[in-house]
């Protein structure tokens, strides 16, 4: 998909000799665009749920929240074992996580997320004091603190990671143009589904328009985006 996106972007940009994006510039903008679209999925999901609860979405093909959830689930990392640091009493959080879905103890027991204040209250209450049957965790700086503190192993996380940074790789120049090389070791395609190709092009054009100071490009891309949103809603 990345080569198609790049070709389309360059075609639009080079019309009327507006400008040119180097592969490095394209990769930067592509990463930015992908992250923005990825994050937007969570807001779309929330809106779609509200509409579904208002009976504005149906089931089957019109089950929009399920379709959005499917895209988000592409980035789900299940059962990542967390490493315990006895010096800080913390489990190291995954470095690439966007949102932790659940922390699991001993493969079956879900550890409940609470705020630090709630953890203090729960720990001091006899009836709700966390135990190995109903453990809790807090996010503590760069790590995860699990209560009760006798839990020091067998903790894993299901989490949503950030998409990997896309990289359009090339091998040689032909006629002054770099030639796409999909076999390069550092090649990385977009991780968003094919249905997002249009959105990626629009987003990259917006950023490119700002880079090359072409207000027309930015305006045109924004109009396209607004129209797309209106159609979806």
């Amino acid at each position: 998909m990345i080569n198609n996106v790049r070709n389309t972007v360059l075609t639009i940009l080079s019309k009327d000799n507006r400008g040119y994006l180097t592969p490095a510039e394209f990769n930067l903008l592509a990463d930015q665009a992908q992250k923005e679209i990825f994050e937007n999925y969570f807001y779309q999901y929330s809106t779609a749920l509200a509409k579904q609860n208002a009976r504005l979405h149906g089931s089957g093909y019109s089950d929009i929240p399920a379709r959005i959830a499917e895209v988000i689930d592409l980035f789900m990392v299940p059962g990542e074992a967390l490493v315990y640091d006895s010096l800080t009493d913390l489990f190291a959080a995954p470095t690439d996580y966007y949102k932790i879905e659940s922390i699991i103890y001993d493969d079956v027991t879900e550890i409940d997320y609470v705020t630090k204040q709630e953890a203090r209250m729960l720990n001091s209450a006899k009836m709700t004091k966390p135990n190995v049957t109903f453990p809790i965790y807090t996010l503590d700086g760069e790590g995860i603190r699990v209560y009760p503190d006798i839990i020091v192993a067998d903790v894993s996380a299901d989490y949503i990671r950030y998409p990997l940074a896309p990289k359009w790789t090339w091998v040689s120049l032909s006629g002054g143009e770099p030639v796409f090389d999909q076999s390069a070791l550092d090649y990385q395609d977009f991780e968003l589904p094919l249905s997002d190709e249009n959105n990626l092009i629009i987003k990259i054009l917006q950023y490119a328009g700002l880079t090359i100071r072409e207000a027309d490009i930015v305006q045109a891309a924004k109009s396209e985006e607004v129209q797309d949103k209106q159609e979806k809603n």
Partner: protein
Amino acid sequence: MSNYISPAEQYYTNGGVPPTDSNWGEYQYVVLADIVNQFIANYVGNDKMINNVKRNQVVFEAKQAIKLLNFDALRSVKAIELLVTSNLKLILPPDYVNYVRVSIEIDGQLRVLSEDRRTNTAVKYIQDNAGNVTFDVNGNIVTGISDLDKHRLGQYTGPGPYNGCMGWCIDGNWYFSYAIGGRFGMETSEANAGPMFRVNNGVIDFSSAMADRLVVLEYISDGMQNGDDTLVTVHQFAEEFVYRYIKWKLLSNKVGVNLYDKKLARDEKQAEFRNAKLRLSNLHPSRLLMSLRGQNKWIK
């Protein structure tokens, strides 16, 4: 513990691991963790009335529901047998909430004791000669054994049937608690020939004749199993009530839920409570029939 124990050998023998009877009758009950997980899976979600609720809130409400069941519906009575020593006190069990019956063992029979609601004990504040309350180095009041207790611990030695019994000696006259009400114009609610007891500050105080006697304390607990959540269970007859209770409590605490939904949830909870109570009361037609067979019996 689990609802479905297989293979059958595991149920009957616990795989040979002691205690081998730990699975017997297990199917009747649902463990707390299952209640919580099932509630979250089936009652909590973005398309349901309850969402954005933390697991610990569900655990808390589930425990409250189980407590309520234990107090009002289950009445699952625990019984312990203890020897009352010469101090005439019995320390309450750690999971004690309230007593059902206190009985004395006499010749292999249990006889129910009456509560003495008139006698009381007190914490004695130690006073100096001027009558001032004394304090220790930490500024706390110095306390001692109540004179009420001391007097009661007196042992009568002399003629009559009370020889060797503990009692009150006031102005040279001995009083024994089981004589309360035992005379003309007696207070019938206190009429009792046996020893008496009173629950006081974490102990049960007994009257004098209870020294060196076996006592059976039947009491109700809150079902919290001394804080071991793996042992907390609910009878299947009451499972639905626990779900409805949690639902009602969570909805009633949530902002933005209309009053109608809250009231509906409360009514559902009440209906399930009545159902649970009826089911747990073990009303069998055959037992009713047995009772009815006595309707024509002549009472002389």
